[in-house]
């Protein structure tokens, strides 16, 4: 497997660059030679350090990472690369990925930002399950306490853009189709608040925690088979508003109409996979069931 560029390659490139500079004049040539030397030294040093870190580590973890890039000939055919990474206690899958990127291959591509399970950008398929990279301790994936191989793939059932990055547009479209915004009927004036009972806030609390990571959608068999199915995250979003007592009756009805459509709540077959993978512990299946009950109460359509 490739853990960085080989030294012969860099030397060849060096000759090329220096050749070009020679054509451009002797002093430029000198300068280019110096720069090339510095750069090569720096790169060699960086690789040496990475090798050393791996050799000296008490334990290493082997990342097997999915690679694909439609634009780069060697990556057009999807493949797995493995990267040995020094393992330390407390290390998350995201930490390990970043280490691999920064020390072996800067083209290794994945989304990440907050490192604390709030931005939702690093939902990945890790050892066969949808998880947030930053919230997954490498040690927890270990068998008998020894982390060996961690297999990292992009979220299933979404189009891969490159390496671990998937296209999220469809997910966003589904979210937006449920009118995911508060629609007040009579907002009080000025500094007066819309009162909300503690109980009601409690009821919607879990549903408001969604970070749009897409893990649930990716884990759902129904969504995989029916592209138009709203999916667990969007239905949960609908629940968040439908159950908020501050929105009036008419609106609740309107909201139920949206989720009762052909590709709405009735598609859910209560498999619980979404609930299982949600990193925010949102009881998604329960919320979907609750909306089904509301629909029955209101005598709405059955698909």
């Amino acid at each position, binding site marked *: 497997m490739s853990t960085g560029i080989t030294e012969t390659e860099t030397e060849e*490139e060096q000759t090329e660059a220096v050749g070009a500079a020679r054509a451009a004049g002797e002093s430029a040539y000198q300068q280019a030679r110096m720069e090339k030397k510095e750069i090569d030294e720096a790169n060699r040093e960086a690789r040496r350090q990475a090798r050393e870190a791996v050799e000296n580590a008490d334990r290493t973890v082997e990342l097997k990472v999915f690679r694909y890039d439609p634009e780069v000939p060697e990556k057009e055919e999807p493949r797995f690369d493995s990267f040995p990474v020094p393992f330390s206690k407390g290390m998350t899958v995201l930490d390990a990925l970043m280490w691999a990127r*920064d020390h072996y291959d800067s083209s290794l591509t994945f989304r990440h930002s*907050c490192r604390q399970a*709030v931005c939702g*950008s690093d939902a990945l398929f890790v050892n066969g399950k949808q998880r947030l990279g930053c919230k997954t301790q490498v040690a927890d994936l270990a068998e008998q306490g020894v982390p060996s191989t961690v297999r990292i793939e992009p979220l299933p059932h979404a189009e891969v*853009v490159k390496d671990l990055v998937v296209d999220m547009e469809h997910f966003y479209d589904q979210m937006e189709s449920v009118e995911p915004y508060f629609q007040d009927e009579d907002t*009080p004036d000025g500094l007066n608040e*819309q009162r909300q009972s503690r109980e009601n806030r409690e009821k919607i609390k879990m549903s408001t925690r969604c970070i749009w990571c897409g893990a649930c959608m990716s884990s759902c068999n129904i969504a995989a088979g029916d592209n138009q199915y709203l999916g667990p995250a969007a239905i949960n979003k609908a629940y968040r508003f439908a159950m908020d007592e501050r*929105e009036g009756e008419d609106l609740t009805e309107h909201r139920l109409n949206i989720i009762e459509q052909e590709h709405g709540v009735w598609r859910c077959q209560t498999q619980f996979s979404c609930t299982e993978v949600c990193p925010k512990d949102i009881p998604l299946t329960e919320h979907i069931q609750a909306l089904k009950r509301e629909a029955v109460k209101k005598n709405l359509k059955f698909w």
Partner: protein
Amino acid sequence: MHEHDVIVVGGGGAGLRAAIAAHEEGADVAIVTKLHPVRSHTGAAEGGINAALRDGDDWTDHAYDTMKGSDYLGDAPAIETLCQDSPGETIQLEHWGMPFSREDDGRVSQRPFGGLSFPRTTYAGAETGHHLLHTMYEQVVKRGITVYDEYYVANLAVTDHPDPEDRECHGCIAYDIKSGDLTAFKATGGVILATGGDGQAFDHTTNAVANTGDGPAMAYRAGVPMEDPEFVQFHPTTLPSTGVLISEGVRGEGGILYNSEGERFMFERGYANNDGELASRDVVSRAELTEVNEGRGIEDEYVYLDMRHLGEERIVDRLENILHLAEDFEGVDGLEEPMPVKPGQHYHMGGIETNENGETCVSGLYAAGECACVSVHGSNRLGGNALPELIVFGARAGYHAAGRDMGEAQIQTGPSAAIEHETDLDTPVSPGALDRPDPDVAADGGAVTADPDAVVESALETERERVETLMERDGINHAEIRADLQDAMTQWVNVFREKEGLQKALEAIRECRERYQNVAVADPSRTFNTDLIHTIETRNLIDVAETITLGALARDEFRGAHWRAEHQERDDEHWLKHTMIAWNDGSPDLYYTDVILEGQDKAYEPKIRSY
């Protein structure tokens, strides 16, 4: 070329609020953001939003607390605006459906926070920022505001007049990250920078990986001074392994700090005899590090934060998120054990110089949120004062850019406000530009021309050349440089600062700048090239780090978050003034402007800060 009236760069709290305001005002507004809006770092804010909402509280008290908290380096007109507008803006969020925590009577809850004389921190569990961000994004969706997400803004289109106060901003240049296409955005009304923090200049930070100071660096290179850059807030309670934040809400609810000897050191060692754990952040951060340095830390690194005595019910009700953070990122059960904590970089008080309407000295260029410095936080920000800043000044910038008359600003911006210039600062290397001119360190900017299209075209061309160079040449990877930069900043420009260390940091930064000249992007692909994006970000971090360090070296006094070994007193006689660092073609100029202590009805008299 895309064209809109107002372009908002950044989809965090400040950017979303600005976009909604501009839209309300009738402008055609677009948000251009490198992360999808709901991925912005505002989502990580935990504690709450300060707003004087209740009987017994008043905006003037909030203003007084903020002035004092700032150690008298805040500008009164900005602080008073913040405190006056915050209640309305906060209730506006409530009217947009934000799921705030509630009292028995159904009104929104408030809690005590450090440095506040009234429990005026309005919150939604320990995940206030998440709800604020999502609530505002929902309103953006509702209004159909255009969002270009995963577009990385790399450059501003600004005219090249010699005096920054004559320059105009006509737009910006961005990569469509997914396709790699370089896109020009023209703004007829204005560009609002709302790019958030720059914690990635340090290696132990509560900030996201995306917080790389892009906005400040771009504005700085376009000629807008960086105001009070030396003032960096270190939060006293971050988890040692990752820098993940444990909200001040924990101390607000009654959490206590103790050292390895089991002493409640804030009181027992006399750091803050009245306020104890709820003293201002700078005070608590220094206290913790002093404990560690004097051998009373745990594992020579941290202290304990204990909330067990609050009881499970209260913890779960108000601080549930903290339990998850401690468990997931440190493996500690907060109901059973105390949590290890140490100070970490958290917030940048300094930033792009603006006035109360979000305007910079370059016309058509605005800034709001953490990247800006209207000067509400001065030398130290009170917890719970950043979120109101986003909504108050985000909204004002949005309205102003869309053409609403916001009244004459009282804060003056740009070099014409200078009161004195620093000439003989003792720096070990001359900071900034190098002898070898390189497009990557030369000033950004378009041509001197009256034609906005030509300015935008020229900025597009500059960017195209830059990226071609980066992609085509061989060179070193930016990650090494970034790591060294972060290391130097953490070692020498941290909670405790001394002259020699700051000078070493400047040398290290200069070295990073030199090596950056040989940086190259190894990934040949145009699709989602994060190697390229991170390489550009690293250059921004170098500029930002340099202004922080230079400002810190110059300010030889002790004020707020800025502690200097050699200078243990606040020196109002010489230092009641704002630091300004201006780009000047890559050789930073340092000058000062007055602090405005006169408010609407009264002048704030500097007092000794005690807690």
